[in-house]
């Protein structure tokens, strides 16, 4: 079996991670959007963070958005 690693952040550490990435304020003030569907990102619906074009981007919980994210990662 080949081991694959998946980076993950637990709910308990989510705010700390967002603060360290300097994007917590953007989410708190509801100025962040899902990169794929444009939905407003909140602490409730954020499912993933990823880098794109030197920016921290976000993905919501919509399965299509998550799939697009995986596609992007593997492109």
């Amino acid at each position, binding site marked *: 079996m080949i*081991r*694959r690693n*998946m980076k*993950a952040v637990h709910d308990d550490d989510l705010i700390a991670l967002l603060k*360290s990435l300097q994007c917590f304020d953007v989410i708190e003030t509801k100025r962040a959007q899902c990169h794929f569907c444009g939905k407003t990102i909140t602490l409730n619906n*954020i*499912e*993933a963070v990823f880098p794109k074009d030197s920016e921290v981007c976000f993905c919501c919980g919509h399965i299509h958005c998550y799939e697009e994210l995986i596609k992007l990662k593997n492109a």
Partner: protein
Amino acid sequence: MNEANIFELIGSVVKPGGWVVLAFVVFAILKYTENVFLIASKFQKLFVWAGSNVRKKTIANDIRGRVLKASKRLTKEKSGLLPYDLKIVWVKDEDRQTFLDNNEIIVRMRNSADPTVNYIHAITEYVKSGLIPGSKKYLDENLLLATNLSVIRKLLLFGGTTAVNYFDENVYNKEVSRDVRSIMGMLRSIDDNGMFIQVLLNEFEKLAVKLNDVLPCQEISKEAFEFTRFLFNIASRKKGDKTKLRFVGNLIKVNICLAVGEGYYSWNDGNAKYREDIDNSYRYGIDTVYIYGMGSKTDAAREIADYVKEHSDFVFDYTIYPHMHISGLRKINAVCVELLITSSENSVSKKLG
């Protein structure tokens, strides 16, 4: 007898037994690793109140155990399809520049009593990253999505969870387009007949080797779709239908043989007729023949494969894939035998093997 002697006596009895127990435990851990993770997760769940580390270990072990369990079940249908063990690496904080430079996704894992969403995300990432990685660029977008979702659903079922209900209600019913659902219906029928993993994905996997990084084009994706439809026609045929069992495309060249009772030949015709058909297949340029046997005929399928391998000039090897044939509410033990009928050194199957 004094105290020291009693302890000495107990030790001399326990010691050999202790090694046996230890050997058994090590064997169980190596053979049933997935269950070790799942049991550990269930145990740790009792102590989630103790702190964040315990909560993380509960989630990580649960996901790893389920993914391993599902992967092993899939491997029984076809080895090497998704031979991955998925490990969660926890991130607490990250330097912004390092994050931007590393180009890696960080997925959220929820601290919920219901681990379903966490598991679905893990399986989605697992499938989309690992399934037919070299060939997926050649598939039509809808066919690729339907294939991924079908495998995801299959793994959710294997993982022994109720996640498949969540998937059906929240993904399949709400988020999947009609076109993709239609294809998923075809793939479901193909899977019920044991041809999804063993034939369709097997042939898609070979495309990567055959095409060797050629640029994707419409002709390739069209042929892949036509092949899917060909298998669906076989899967959905009624008794007595004269369904085409041979597909000769530019890239995919396959013959399906149904062992006994239905299809081309009955058992009375004997193995020689199968060999004749398979040798003729080679003349058509077929490179893989699949023989199917169901129920009491599974042994017949194996015997035919043995006979053909021994007597045919073109068959150099075969692989057996056991599976469950689903017909309505009935599940019947079945077997698919993949015959590799080219003896060329450049054969795809040798490269993949």
